[in-house]
């Protein structure tokens, strides 16, 4: 039972001007072990807030969120995180970055080196171990970030727009890599994205969130992620169901955006 359970999760921020922003309102969901959830929504709908709460960086105003029946209180190794732009430690080499978590646990460096090499091979960075990270391209940096997170063997992986800053081609390759890793490791993954296509392709489940207050607007169960395990991702995009769902979601988000604009005007 390593489920992620959120009960009546509320998050209210106070701006310096004294206004209150209801970032999350009464969020209830359950994520089973091994599920891949993608979260989509216009900006300001509380996606990143949800992720930060799950990671333990901030505490919710009310409600609880539990992983494996344990309430989340502060950051922990069992919840790995991948950021939009690597957030790599540029003073360390690729190996040292990947190794970072194990080194913090003071594990035997000889044993960890073997693990590091294994993970570098999985993410396709074999032989780059001694390269300084500032010499890597954006896609490679994200691979390092993935390996660095996975080497700690977390129960839950949180990805905050991990592919957002990459070019289209690299992005596709990385999408396949995420699916591959999901399949091979069977980890629970929450992935936040701006791209509807990406959310459809990768998400076994998909939440479309709505802003003000931040809430889950609609939930989808999608077949494309399991299909993508054996198929070329571009084939899936040609699928009729895929395009109709995509149009539906796009319309939904457009409506939301218009509503916000209207409110503001």
């Amino acid at each position, binding site marked *: 039972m390593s489920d992620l359970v959120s009960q009546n999760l509320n998050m209210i921020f106070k701006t310096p001007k004294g206004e209150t922003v209801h970032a999350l309102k009464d969020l209830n969901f359950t994520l089973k072990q091994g599920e891949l959830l993608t979260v989509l929504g216009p900006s300001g709908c509380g996606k990143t807030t949800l992720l930060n709460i799950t*990671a*333990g*960086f901030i505490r919710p105003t009310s409600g609880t969120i539990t992983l494996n029946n344990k309430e989340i209180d502060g*950051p*922990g*190794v069992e*919840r*790995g*995180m991948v*950021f*939009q*732009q690597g*957030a790599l*430690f*540029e*003073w360390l080499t690729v190996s040292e970055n990947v190794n*970072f*978590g194990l*080194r*913090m*646990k003071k594990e035997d460096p000889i044993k960890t080196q073997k693990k590091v090499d294994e993970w570098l091979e999985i993410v396709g960075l074999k032989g780059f171990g001694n390269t*300084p*990270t*500032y010499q890597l391209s954006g896609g490679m940096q994200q691979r390092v*970030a993935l390996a*660095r*997170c996975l080497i*700690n063997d977390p129960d839950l992986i*949180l990805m905050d727009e991990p592919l957002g800053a990459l070019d289209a081609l690299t992005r596709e390759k990385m999408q396949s890599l995420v699916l591959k890793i999901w399949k091979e490791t069977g980890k629970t993954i929450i992935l936040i994205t701006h791209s509807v296509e990406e959310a459809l392709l990768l998400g076994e489940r998909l939440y479309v969130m709505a802003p003000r207050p931040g809430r889950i607007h609609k939930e989808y169960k999608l077949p494309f992620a399991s299909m993508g395990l054996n198929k070329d991702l571009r084939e899936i995009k040609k699928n009729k169901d895929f395009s109709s769902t995509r149009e539906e979601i796009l319309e939904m988000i457009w409506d939301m955006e218009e509503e916000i604009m209207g409110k503001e005007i």
Partner: protein
Amino acid sequence: MLTQLITFLIFFAVIGCILYGRRLIKTEKIDAVFGNPERALGGTHWVIVGSSFLLLIWLYYSWDIAKGFYPKSANELCQVAKVNDSLLGLKYQFPIEQRELKSTSQIRQENKNLKKITIEIQNSNDLNNEQKTILIGFITKTKQLIPLLTNENLLEGETKQKINDITGKINLLTENFKKPDYPFENEQERNERLKAVSEEGGWGITKVDAGSGTIENTIEVPLVPATNRGLKFDAAAQELNLISDEFFKLRNHNPRFQNTIKELKNDVKVYRNDLNDSEEVASSYAKNIVKIARRIEFASIYPPNALDKMQNAIVNFDKAQIEAQGGLRFVDIFLFPAGTIVASGPSCSEQGSGRWLPKPSDTLNKFVLMSKPSVGYKEIPLLWINMVDVSKMIGFILPDWIADILPGDYPVHTKDGIVKQNFKGKVLKFVTGDFKLFKIPVPYGHIWDSFLRVFLGLVFGIIIGVPLGLFMGLNRFAKGFFDPLIELYRPVPPLAWAPLIISVLGIDNTGKVFLLFMVSLSIMIISARAGASGTQLSKIHAAHSLGASKRQILRYVIFPNSLPEILTGIRVAVGMCWGTLVAAEFLAGTTGIGFVENVAKKYFQYEVIWITIFIMGMLGLLFDVTLRKIIDKTIPWRGKG
């Protein structure tokens, strides 16, 4: 010799490089447009031209070229200056370089003075008519003195004879001067002169005081004539001095003049004695009139044509001496820019740029000399090593109270007069360094002292500033608590603290190191704080979710992330410390480069001043280059993250 060679080398380098540069411009393709930065690439030959030009100007304006190519020129010109000076008084009497005879202008001046005083007396309200009449009478008598001097018929035979004598002497001198073997020096005189020349040394020679080993001031230009030409001028100058003394002693006082002036003086004296206190104005006018009479008495006033022959003689001698100078005049004008030796008079000083801009050759000589540990400056070498026993260092580092706190007592002598050492005594010997181990070389000297002060100030600043700065960047309490303290002392210019700190902590190392510590501390705190607070939040989040503890995040994320800022801070601090140190050493102290410069300033030792400037520049450069190397090695990711 070396200067000559270098001058030629530089000269040809400049010409060669300019020609090369011209040819390069012609052969280059016109693919780079104006404003294209590629146009500024390369150009080593222009570097050579630039630096050579600088050296050439230095050599020229410091008169080193004159010294290199014509070492005797200064000495010879010095002798010319002597002649010029001796001739000046005589020449001044005649319309040679002046517009009129000295007599004429003096007569005019005194007549003017008398006229002025006449008008003043006539218009005065403080004088009664009787007084006015008497005073005007005095003036009329004074006026009558002048024709008594200028009347040719009254000129006495004796005076005429003396004028003829002097003229004859000048003519003889001119005649002799033209002879090649003048001043007819005999063997003994010659040997004596040459001995004096060798004792005096060459131009700009550096003398080291044998006793104390300190460098004495440079002799600028040797005064004793070293060449035959110089000797000629020197001898002529001496003779001219005698002649001109004789002339100025001569008085054109005929008996009538003497009687008249005696009468006048007497009359005034009697008149003034009879005056009472209320008639002070009349008294002072009378006094002034006598003053004018005295001036006329002692001026060399002669009848208009009495000195014509003498004038001719002087003009002839002047021509002869200018002829004898030959090319020397042009040497003086062209090889001694910004002031000439002749213009400085018989003292022959290197005024003008020759003093404050020392010759490269002299500077180099002095630098080599000062670098010798036995010479140094103020009995301390610039940089040398001392063999110091390691035990002394142990004794210096370990505090003496280690021995004090041990149980038991120190050894007491027995009644037999023997001191038996015990454990506590042995420990005391150890902590005070009273034993022998092996010796290691330890640097010392002015340069080392300056370096050590900067280094220690910097190290203490880093040790305390970096952790405090990081702490302030991460903790609200620390930021709030220490901020006022730092922001209050930091904006004060470091030197403003110097008098206070030096008077509290002493003029030795402690005060200066503390001052530099203050300088580096604020810089290190600010840079470390900026580094710590500039850490990306996502990196800290990442480290948190990778299981790092607070301490580990500080050690492995925040510290390395602040390293670029910290190292830049160190670079800035080094520059600041270096500048402050030199100024602090100016203020007080007994060692250090700034101290050397300050002392050199007091004794006008321009060479030493330039040497210290050079050393400081080199050390500053060394610091910066070293730090830049360290920065490139330790934070290669800087600006690439």
